[in-house]
């Protein structure tokens, strides 16, 4: 516990999906006494670490807003092909690409001189010769780097009078079930190609032909096959690659963006929840070098669908004449209190997707409310995982075997796993947030469900007696903290406001207490 680093997720200041620090400044291993080299950018002198490029120095000290870039991405190898980031370096004969030029001691750099701006205008004009004017249709509009940079640096007019290039087949080409390619919009930055080459190492994208006919293609018939396809659509600077799940659902400027944590696996990727009117439209990763870097996996990205599922139980349900019926929480808790008092033994099973605070609350405070001895245990439910010791990496990037976010955090409360994965008491209370599995129960077992459930899950319990369902808040709707598989504790705050009848565990416990 004492060795773990605890920090809160913060919204990045630059409203892009990544920040370009390769490593957090705090983790610099050698704050030695020897003087650091200095570089002068736009009239101010900055210290830097040997090996930093001009771009990295400028990013770190936030010189101006940012140096414009298309091909450069801090999570990928440097290509230096787009020429958008060129800056003027004194005593250098030509403009230098800031992304690939290492800063040197005594170097004097101008990022916004007339020469630089003229160069950028020229680059923009060339990029726009073939880029279609279909921003109204394009899903990227509003968060498009081409739009932003054109607004800032673009020429406003074009000398290009000829017919624009149209890729007939690749206008709306499905690269996979999740990603659609519109080649007309592509500016050939090749971030996507480098991503599959160097980050996922699946090599499933390649640029074929050259010049006017340069075209992105999948290397195999199956198209894209990696598990990080959503990231392609995040960092694509234009609308060439779009995420089918989000495609045409909402324009980006309507979305309100709040940070939270993905609860799809024990990695705990930092995400930004994009929602409008408390309806979630997508998850987007936030850069956190210690946890997820710049990326997140596709199953985590799509996991918001479980919360927006219309089958989710969002109001308290009570068993009445062999059917579950909507009721008030007070009525439900009153009824459950009687049932629990009369029960010979009560068992509480906490899913490993509960937050640390919830686990502590349920373990320490909840039994005293009932006035009864309650045996508390946790249950993971992922196939092959009973405790955090079973967790292991599923690939070279982010995916973990444990599909619940907080196994370590629940273990830390001194709760032990459910022995044999089976319950044995008269009444069992199952608390979970929709990610942990449902423990095996014998037929006719009386059970109280608490947390995030949906009706399909409840239907699988048809041989048991469900006394009631207490609707709870999902991860992005509540406040709390998770301890991920690497032992990092991450706090989060509500990203959306729950509009149904579900209440947080604290509220339910307080109400239960006031009833007794």
């Amino acid at each position: 516990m004492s060795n773990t680093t605890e920090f809160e997720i913060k919204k990045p200041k630059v409203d892009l999906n990544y920040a370009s620090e390769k490593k957090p400044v705090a983790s610099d291993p050698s704050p030695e006494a020897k003087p650091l080299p200095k570089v002068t950018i736009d009239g101010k002198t900055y210290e830097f670490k040997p090996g930093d490029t001009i771009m990295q120095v400028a990013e770190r000290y936030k010189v101006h807003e940012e140096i414009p870039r298309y091909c450069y991405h801090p999570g990928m190898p440097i290509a230096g092909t787009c020429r958008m980031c060129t800056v003027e370096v004194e005593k250098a004969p030509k403009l230098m690409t800031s992304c690939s030029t290492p800063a040197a001691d005594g170097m004097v750099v101008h990022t916004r001189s007339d020469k630089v701006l003229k160069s950028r205008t020229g680059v923009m004009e060339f990029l726009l010769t073939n880029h279609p004017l279909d921003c109204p249709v394009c899903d990227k509009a509003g968060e498009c780097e081409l739009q932003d940079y054109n607004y800032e640096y673009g020429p406003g007019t074009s000398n290009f009078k000829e017919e624009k290039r149209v890729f007939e087949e690749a206008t709306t080409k499905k690269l996979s079930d999740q990603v659609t390619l519109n080649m007309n919009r592509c500016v050939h930055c090749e971030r996507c190609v480098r991503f599959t080459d160097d980050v996922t190492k699946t090599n499933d994208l390649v640029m074929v032909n050259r010049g006017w006919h340069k075209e992105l293609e999948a290397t195999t018939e199956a198209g894209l096959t990696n598990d990080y396809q959503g990231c392609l659509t995040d960092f694509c600077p234009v609308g060439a690659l779009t995420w089918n799940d989000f495609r045409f659902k909402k324009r980006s400027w309507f979305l309100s963006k709040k940070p939270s944590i993905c609860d799809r696996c024990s990695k705990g990727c930092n995400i930004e929840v994009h929602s409008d009117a408390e309806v979630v439209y997508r998850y987007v990763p936030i850069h956190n070098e210690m946890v997820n870097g710049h990326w997140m996996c596709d199953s985590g990205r799509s996991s918001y669908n479980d919360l927006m599922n219309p089958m989710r139980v969002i109001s308290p349900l009570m068993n009445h004449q062999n059917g579950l019926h909507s009721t008030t929480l007070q009525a439900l808790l009153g009824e459950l209190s009687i049932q629990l008092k009369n029960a010979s033994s009560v068992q509480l099973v906490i899913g490993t997707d509960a937050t640390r605070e919830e686990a502590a609350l349920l373990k320490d405070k909840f039994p005293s409310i009932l006035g009864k001895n309650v045996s508390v245990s946790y249950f993971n439910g992922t196939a092959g995982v009973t405790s955090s010791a079973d967790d292991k990496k599923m690939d070279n990037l982010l995916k973990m075997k444990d599909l619940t976010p907080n196994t370590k955090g629940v273990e830390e409360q001194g709760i032990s796993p459910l022995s044999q994965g089976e319950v044995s008491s008269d009444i069992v209370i199952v608390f979970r947030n929709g990610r942990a599995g449902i423990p095996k129960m014998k037929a006719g077992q009386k059970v109280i469900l608490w947390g995030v459930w949906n009706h399909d899950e409840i239907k699988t319990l048809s041989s048991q007696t469900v006394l009631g369902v207490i609707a709870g808040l999902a991860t992005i709707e509540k406040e709390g903290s998770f301890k991920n598989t690497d032992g990092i504790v991450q706090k989060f705050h509500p990203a959306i406001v729950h509009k149904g009848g579900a209440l947080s565990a604290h509220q339910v416990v307080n109400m239960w207490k006031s009833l007794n």
Partner: protein
Amino acid sequence: MATINVSKKYTVKEKTYLPAILIGMKITMKRFLQGFLLRKHDTILYPEKKRDYSDRFRGMHFISVDKNKTENCTACYLCETVCPAECIHIVADERDEDQNPYGVKKEKKPVSFDIDSLRCCFCGFCEEACPKDAIKLSTNYELAVSSREEAIYDLDHLKREMNGRSEK
């Protein structure tokens, strides 16, 4: 002296009111005779005769269509974004290939496009924002409907050829 006296002293002649009444009666009699004998009216017989409105008059909305009767709208939400009354509601989806004669231009289509004319303030911002010249305001000012549901214009209603629309 902080008050301003705005009351007027009336003369005896004015106080009888009779001259003023007679002047008024003279005017109404003149009007009566003009209406009765010369058929001089300031009003018009509305449904048969209609007033000429300015070409810039902003009346009922319509969505322009191409020669295949496909709407020019690409569901870009710009009108919905700019609308100060928040009366436009669009649901977008992928356009089918066969419905897509211009290839790249129309990959997106509105599945539903509703304008709540009861909320609309006819400011014309949507027309100005539209990049495709799809939504326009016609000079048709006959917006009366017999139920609230009819006042919400759906896509079919908006695509219909509008009476008196200007093609300029």
